[in-house]
């Protein structure tokens, strides 16, 4: 759906390139997670993909054609959530949505969205008087207004309470179920793990890894089992490689000792994040 080849970008006032030559592909119908430490260039990449930042080097293809060849009807297709919620502060939530809705040809009914996001009761409140979480939810609804084919979400759940984050994640998953494609950045690794089909790590303008969370866990996880048990009143821990667990030594331990915990050594996305981005920083 979106192919990026050797993308480089320098902000007009900067001397250094912020994006230093990256390649990746977002496939139709997937949720693609874009991860990386602060200031790595995630938001910049999103802003290039939505054509807000112009003058990039390299190639970006959208649906098989250069992004540059599209006219402004490209925007009929996409929905955008910026990192910071955006609205006309002196207009009510409903007035904001009504205004933006009229800019598109194809639109959806906002009532179910507002209800689902818990903003229906407050729809006539000024957006400037919304709490942070309310603004974030309104922002998400705005991105969905034109029934987009591709959603660009820059840290969408950042700043939401767990219940609303749950609802938003469900809506993102339902969007994918209906055939939508999502480009998502987030610092919340559990969200990424749950939502994303594939992720890419960007560090200082360069990509480090690109794979499914499951494959990354297999790659970075230690294929071990860690057993904690009591011996003479002390807590002892032992690690076995996956090959070792078929040996008698392992079974003997399980049978003879007072076992406290058993953990497989598969890592979390968080560990991978630290490993991938940390190594890069030292290297």
């Amino acid at each position, binding site marked *: 759906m979106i192919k990026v080849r050797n993308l480089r970008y320098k902000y*007009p006032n900067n001397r250094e390139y912020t994006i230093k030559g990256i390649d990746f592909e977002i496939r139709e119908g997937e949720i693609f997670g874009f991860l990386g430490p602060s200031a790595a260039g995630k*938001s910049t990449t999103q*802003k290039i993909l*939505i*054509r*807000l*930042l*112009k003058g990039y080097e390299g190639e970006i293809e959208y649906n098989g054609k250069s992004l540059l060849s599209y*006219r*402004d*009807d490209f*925007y*009929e297709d*996409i929905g*955008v959530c*910026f*990192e*910071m919620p*955006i*609205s*006309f*502060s*002196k*207009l009510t939530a409903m*007035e904001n949505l009504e*205004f*933006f809705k*009229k*800019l*598109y*040809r194809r639109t959806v009914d906002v009532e179910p969205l507002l209800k689902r996001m818990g903003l229906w009761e407050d729809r006539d409140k000024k957006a400037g008087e919304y709490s942070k979480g309310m603004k974030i939810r309104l922002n998400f609804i*705005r991105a969905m207004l*034109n029934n987009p084919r591709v959603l660009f979400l820059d840290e969408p759940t950042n700043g939401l309470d767990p219940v609303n984050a749950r609802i938003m994640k469900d809506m993102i998953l339902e969007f994918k179920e209906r055939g939508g494609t999502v480009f998502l950045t987030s610092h919340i690794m559990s969200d990424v793990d749950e939502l994303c089909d594939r992720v890419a790590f960007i560090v200082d303008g360069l990509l480090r890894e690109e794979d499914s969370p499951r494959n990354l866990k297999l790659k970075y996880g230690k294929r071990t089992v860690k057993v904690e048990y009591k011996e003479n009143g002390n807590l002892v821990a032992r690690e076995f490689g996956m090959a070792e667990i078929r040996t008698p030594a392992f079974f003997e331990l399980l049978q003879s000792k007072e076992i406290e915990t058993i953990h497989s050594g598969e890592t979390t996305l968080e560990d991978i994040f630290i490993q991938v981005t940390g190594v890069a920083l030292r290297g």
Partner: protein
Amino acid sequence: MDRLLVLVKGEFNRLNKYNLFTAHFVVLMVWVGLAWFFEAAELKAFVPFIFLMDATMMTILLVGATLFYEKQEHTINSIMVSPVTGDQYLLSKVVVNVLNSFVTVVFISAALYFMKGVVYNYFLLVPAVVVVAASHTIIGIWLSYHAKSFSSLLVNYIIYVFVFLLPTVLAMLGIIGEAAARFLIVLPPDTANILISAMVREVDPWRLVFGYAYLILLSVVLYRYIVRPWFDWYVMREVGV
């Protein structure tokens, strides 16, 4: 075209919600209040100044204020990731300001007529105000590009006025000779003044023709070669979202 209409309506709605209409209305009331103290005959000399200020200064301030709000609240980014084109966005600002100046014409003219029975050539006033407001919207957008905040827009405006009014003042003081002074028509505030003054006094037809052609051409050139090309840069600058 539909989209331009949506943008214009949206802009009017926001001028209202952001109290810019109220601010404009207060200024108009001040003009009406001032007019109260003049005799009908004196008013005729004074009233072009009202329309001149409204179509130049008020236009620049209003367009600057809306651009400033949209930049500050980043809503310009949201608009630019919708199917709205840069041309539609900028053109909507021009249309809104032209309509606004037209409202001023109706409001002030009605007030002067009912208060003092003052009438003047409305058929020369309306096109002058339309062209002056349109060209000054474009000038206002251009000045906003070079302003980091609303107050620096004010400073830019003062510089603009100073630079362009100075030769006129010098001409009035006789420092610039008669022959050279004739060329002052190429300064936009001067051109605007000549076009609008035609509502109350005789103006050489050639000066009117030249004035209209000049302001229209200036607007087109400024738009085509400065305002439109730099718009993307203006949106990109400090896209802190």
